[in-house]
C-alpha cells in the first residue's frame, strides 16, 4: 500500500515545495515509485522546482473533471523514471477538489506508486485541508522563527482533528518535524531558536534539519531539486531525511557552526 505523505506548514515560504521536490526525487532515486502532487491550485510551482514546467499539458483539475486521464496528466521525470509529477491547475477554480474526487485519484495512484507526496498550499483553507485529508504521514516544515512555529502548531491541530484518520478514529497521522533554513551560527549567538527549542514547543519527532544554504536558490533557478547537489549541505541533509523516511537511523548533521580559527576570532573577520 502506498504511503501518503503531506508536506505542510501553515505558513508560506518556509520550503514546502523545495522539500517536496527534494524528498520525492530522493525517494525515487532509492528505487521507489513516487508521485508528487501539487495541491496548490491556482499557484502551480512544483513543476518549476522540478524543472518540468514546459511539459505540463494536463493538470490535477483536468483529471478530476474527467478532461484527461491520470496517464495523460502525469509527467514522467527525465532524471528518474520511477518519479512522476501531477501538476496543479493554474485556474482559480478552488472548489474543483473535494474529498470524493481527490480520494478517487489517490486511490488510483496508490495502486501504482509506493509513495504519494502531497505538496500542500500555505494557509488553513480548503486547499491545505484537502492536501492533508488523506495523509498517513505529515512532514511539518518549519523555520526556526516565531510565526512559522506557531502556524505549524495550528497545522498539527488540523492533522489531529480534520484528517480522514481523525474522522474515522484510525491511528493518527504520523507527524515529522522538518526544520528548514537553520543557521547553527545564529543559534549559537542566541539569535535563532534551536532545534531543541522547536522540538520542545511542537513536541513531535524530528525528521531532519536543513541548514540555510545558497544551494537551495541555485537549485530552484535550475529546476534541479537540491538533493541532486550532493556536495551541498542542504542536499546532504535532504538525503538524510529520505534515508530516515525509509527507516534508517542516521545522526543529525549540520547542527553546529563551523569553528573559526583562533586568529579570526581574535582579530575579527
Amino acid at each position, binding site marked *: 500500500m502506498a504511503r501518503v505523505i503531506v508536506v505542510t506548514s501553515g505558513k508560506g515560504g518556509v520550503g514546502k515545495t523545495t522539500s517536496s521536490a527534494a524528498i520525492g526525487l530522493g525517494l525515487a532515486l532509492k528505487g521507489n515509485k513516487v508521485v508528487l502532487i501539487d495541491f496548490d491550485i491556482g499557484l502551480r510551482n512544483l513543476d518549476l522546482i522540478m524543472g518540468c514546467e514546459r511539459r505540463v499539458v494536463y493538470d490535477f483539475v483536468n483529471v478530476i473533471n474527467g478532461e484527461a486521464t491520470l496517464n495523460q496528466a502525469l509527467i514522467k521525470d527525465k532524471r528518474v523514471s520511477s518519479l512522476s509529477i501531477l501538476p496543479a491547475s493554474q485556474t482559480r477554480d478552488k472548489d474543483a477538489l473535494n474529498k470524493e474526487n481527490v480520494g478517487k485519484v489517490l486511490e488510483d495512484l496508490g495502486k501504482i506508486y509506493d509513495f504519494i507526496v502531497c505538496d500542500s498550499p500555505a494557509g488553513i483553507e480548503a486547499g491545505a485541508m484537502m492536501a492533508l485529508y488523506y495523509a498517513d504521514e505529515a512532514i511539518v516544515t518549519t523555520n526556526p522563527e516565531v510565526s512559522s512555529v506557531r502556524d505549524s*502548531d495550528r497545522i498539527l*491541530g488540523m492533522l489531529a482533528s480534520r484528517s480522514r484518520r481523525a474522522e474515522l478514529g484510525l491511528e493518527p497521522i504520523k507527524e515529522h518535524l522538518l526544520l528548514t533554513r537553520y543557521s547553527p551560527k545564529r*543559534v549559537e549567538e542566541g539569535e535563532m*531558536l*534551536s532545534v531543541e527549542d522547536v522540538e*520542545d*514547543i511542537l513536541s513531535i519527532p524530528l525528521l531532519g534539519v536543513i541548514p540555510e544554504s545558497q544551494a537551495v536558490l541555485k537549485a530552484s533557478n535550475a529546476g534541479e531539486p537540491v538533493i541532486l547537489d550532493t556536495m551541498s549541505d542542504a542536499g546532504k541533509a535532504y538525503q538524510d531525511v529520505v534515508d530516515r523516511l525509509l527507516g534508517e537511523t542516521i545522526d543529525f548533521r549540520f547542527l553546529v557552526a563551523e569553528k573559526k580559527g583562533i586568529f579570526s576570532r*581574535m582579530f*575579527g573577520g
Partner: protein
Amino acid sequence: MALLDYFTRKKEKQVTTASKAKERLQIIVAHERNSRNKQPDYLPQLTQDILQVLRKYIKVSDESFSINLDKKEGDLNVLELNIELHDENNSN
C-alpha cells in the same frame, strides 16, 4: 576590539532574543492548544441551535447566555449552560 568583544560577549547574552522567542511561543502555543481542545468544531453551531430553541419560549439576550464545554479528569466532559432569566421577560 574583536579580542575585547570576545571576553565581554558572554555577559551581554544572558537574555537572548532566541530565549525570548521560545518563552513567547510556549505561552501562546499553550494558550491556543487549550482553546482548541476545549472548543470542538460543533460548538458554535450548537450554541446557535440552543439559543434558537430557547428563544421560542423565553427572551434571551446574547449577553445573558453562555455555553462552556469543559474537559474534566478522565473521559468526563461537562457541557455547561448559563442562562440569566429576567422576570419581566417570561412569557407565562
